[in-house]
C-alpha cells in the first residue's frame, strides 16, 4: 500500500512538471492551430539558460525563470511573425509543421555544438534535501518544481480568463475573422500567443533542469510529451494541460514501478494511440470548441 502511495505521489509530482512543459504547446495548438515541433527546443533552451545563469552568475533557477521567460517570449514572437507566418501564407498550415521540425533540427544541432553532447543537471543547494510525510519521502526539489509549476499554470489560467489580453487571445482562437472585425490585431495576437507559449516552455525548462538531467537530444522527448499531454487532457487550456500532465505522470510512474522502467515509453505511446482512437480531443476537449 505504501509503495502504491509513494508511486502515486511520484507520478503526480512528475505530472505537474509535464503539465507546465506542455501548456505552451497546448495554447499554440489551440489558438493558432499549429503543431509546434520546436516546442521541445524551447524547453531545453530554458534548461540550458538556467544552467548558464546558475553556473556563471549564481542565479537560482527559480529566479532565472523571469529573464529566460522574457528572452524566449521575444524569440517566440519573432519566430512566429517571420518563419511560421511565411510558411503558412506561402504554403499551408501543414507545411508549418514541417518548418517547425526543420528549425528544431537546426536548433538541436546548434545546442549540441555549443554545449557539447554531455548530460547536464543543475544542482542548487537544496538539491539533496528531502521531506518525509509519514512513510512517504519526497525530494525538496521536486516539491519546489511542482509548486512552481502549479503557480505558473494558475497565473496563465488567470491571465487567459480575466485580462483583456486573455480575452483577446480567446476571441482570436474562436473566431479569427470576427475578432479582426472587432478591432483586434490577430496577427500580432498570434505572435504574442506564440511568445507566451515559448516563455512558458522556457520557464518549465528552468524547472526541469533542477529535477532531471537533460541534453540537446532530449528536446524530442519533450515535444512528444507535450503532444501526449494535449491528447490526454485537452487542447488549449491550462486545465487540460494539468489533467493530461498528471495522467501522463501517473502512467509513467505506475509503469516504471509495476511493469518495468524500460517500458514507460511504450506505455505512454500505447495510451496515446488508444486515446487518439477513442477521444482525440482529450478528456476536457478543445477549449475553443468546434470553431476550428
Amino acid at each position, binding site marked *: 500500500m505504501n509503495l502504491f502511495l509513494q508511486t502515486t505521489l511520484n507520478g503526480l509530482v512528475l505530472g505537474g512538471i509535464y503539465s507546465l512543459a506542455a501548456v505552451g504547446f497546448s495554447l499554440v495548438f489551440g489558438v493558432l492551430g499549429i503543431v509546434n515541433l520546436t516546442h521541445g527546443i524551447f524547453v531545453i533552451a530554458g534548461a540550458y539558460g538556467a544552467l548558464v545563469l546558475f553556473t556563471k552568475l549564481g542565479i537560482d533557477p527559480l529566479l532565472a525563470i523571469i529573464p529566460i521567460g522574457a528572452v524566449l517570449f521575444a524569440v517566440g514572437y519573432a519566430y512566429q511573425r517571420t518563419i511560421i507566418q511565411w510558411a503558412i501564407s506561402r504554403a499551408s498550415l501543414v507545411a508549418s509543421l514541417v518548418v517547425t*521540425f526543420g528549425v528544431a*533540427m*537546426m536548433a538541436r*544541432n546548434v545546442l549540441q555544438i555549443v554545449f557539447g553532447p554531455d548530460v547536464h543537471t543543475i544542482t542548487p543547494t537544496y538539491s539533496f534535501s528531502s521531506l518525509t510525510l509519514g512513510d512517504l519521502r519526497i525530494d525538496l526539489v521536486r516539491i519546489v518544481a511542482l509548486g512552481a509549476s502549479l503557480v505558473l499554470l494558475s497565473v496563465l489560467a488567470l491571465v487567459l480568463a480575466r485580462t483583456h489580453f486573455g480575452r483577446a487571445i480567446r476571441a482570436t482562437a474562436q473566431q479569427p475573422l470576427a475578432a479582426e472585425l472587432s478591432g483586434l490585431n490577430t496577427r500580432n495576437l498570434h505572435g504574442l500567443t506564440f511568445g507566451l507559449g515559448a516563455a512558458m516552455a522556457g520557464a518549465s525548462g528552468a524547472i526541469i533542469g533542477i529535477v532531471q538531467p537533460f541534453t540537446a537530444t532530449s528536446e524530442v522527448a519533450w515535444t512528444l510529451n507535450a503532444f501526449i499531454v494535449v491528447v490526454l487532457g485537452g487542447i488549449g487550456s491550462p486545465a487540460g494541460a494539468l489533467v493530461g500532465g498528471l495522467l501522463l505522470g501517473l502512467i509513467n510512474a505506475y509503469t516504471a514501478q509495476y511493469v518495468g522502467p524500460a517500458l514507460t515509453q511504450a506505455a505512454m*505511446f500505447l495510451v*496515446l494511440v488508444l486515446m487518439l*482512437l477513442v477521444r482525440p480531443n482529450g478528456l476536457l476537449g478543445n477549449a475553443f470548441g468546434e470553431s476550428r
Partner: protein
Amino acid sequence: MKQGAALAAAAAVVIAALVLPMWIGPFYTRVLQLFFFSAALAVAWNILGGFSGYWSFGHTVFIGMGAFAAAHFVQQAGPFGSGPWAILVPVLFAGVLCGVFAAIIAYPILRLRGIYFAIAMLGVSQVVGELVNNVSWFQGGVGVFLPPPALDGMAPEDFFYYVFGGLLLLCVIIAMMVRKSRFGHALLSIREDEETAMMLGVATERYKIAAFVLSAMLVGVLGAVYAYSVGYFTTYTVFRLDFSLNMIVFCLIGGIGTLFGPIIGTAIMLFITQVLLSRFLDIHLLITGAMVVVIILLMPGGVIGALRAWRQSRATGKDREAEART
C-alpha cells in the same frame, strides 16, 4: 513518340546503373547503394503519404519489423536455397508479415487524419520498437545475426548495390502502376477531399487500407534486405526515427505526391550530406533542417513542383494558376 523517348532514357539509366560498379570504387558503390535504399523507401512512403496524403511519421516500424522477421525466419526455419537466392524467401516472408501487421492496425489507425495519424504512427513505431528491445524472445536488445548470402566471388557491396537497385526499380514501377490506375486516382481524390470522394462513391476506406498495406510491404522488404546488408543489428539499428523522417524529408524536397520527386529529393539530400559534407558530420542536422525550411518557404511543391510552376508560368505567362495547383 514521347513514350518511346522516355523508355529509351529509362533503359539507358538502367544499363548505366548495371555497369557503374566496375568504374567507381567501393566507397561510391556504397553511397549509391544507400541512395537506392533511401530512394526506394521514399518512393514506398510516397504511395501512402504522397498519393493519399496520410503522412506517416513512423514508417521505420516496417523497416524494423522486416529486419527482425527475416532474421527470426532464418533462425527458425533455416536458410531456403543456396547462393544469393537464399535471401529471397526470408525477405518475402518479411514483406508479407509487414503487410499483415499493417492490415491489422490499418482499420483503427486510418480513421485518424493529418497530424493525428502522423503522431499515432510515430507511437506505433515507438511501442513496437520498445517491445522488440525489451521482450527477450525478439533478441532486439542483444542483437541478431543474419548470415550473409554466399556470393561466390562477388563483392558484397556490389551484390547489395544490384539488389537495392532492383528494388528501387520495382518500387518505381509499382508506384507508376498505382498512379496510373483507378486505385491511384482514388488515392489522389482522398488527398484532395476525403468527404467528397466518399460521397461520390469512392471506397475510401478500402483504398486507404490497400495503400497502407502496399507501402508497408515494400518497406518491410527493403528493411529485410537492409538487415542482410548490415549482417548484425539491434533494435536501434533498424527502429530509427531518422529513417522515418528521411522518407518524409526526401519526398518533400523532391516534390510530395509526384512519381520521381522522392528520387530527386533523395539524390539531392544524399549528395549534400554524403558527398559534399562527408567530413562535417557534426552539422548534418543543421544542413538538413535548413534545407527543409528553405524548400518549404521558397518552393513548397519541392523541386518538381517548382519546375512545373516555372514551365506553366512560361507557357501561360501567368503563375497564379501554378500557385493554385500546389
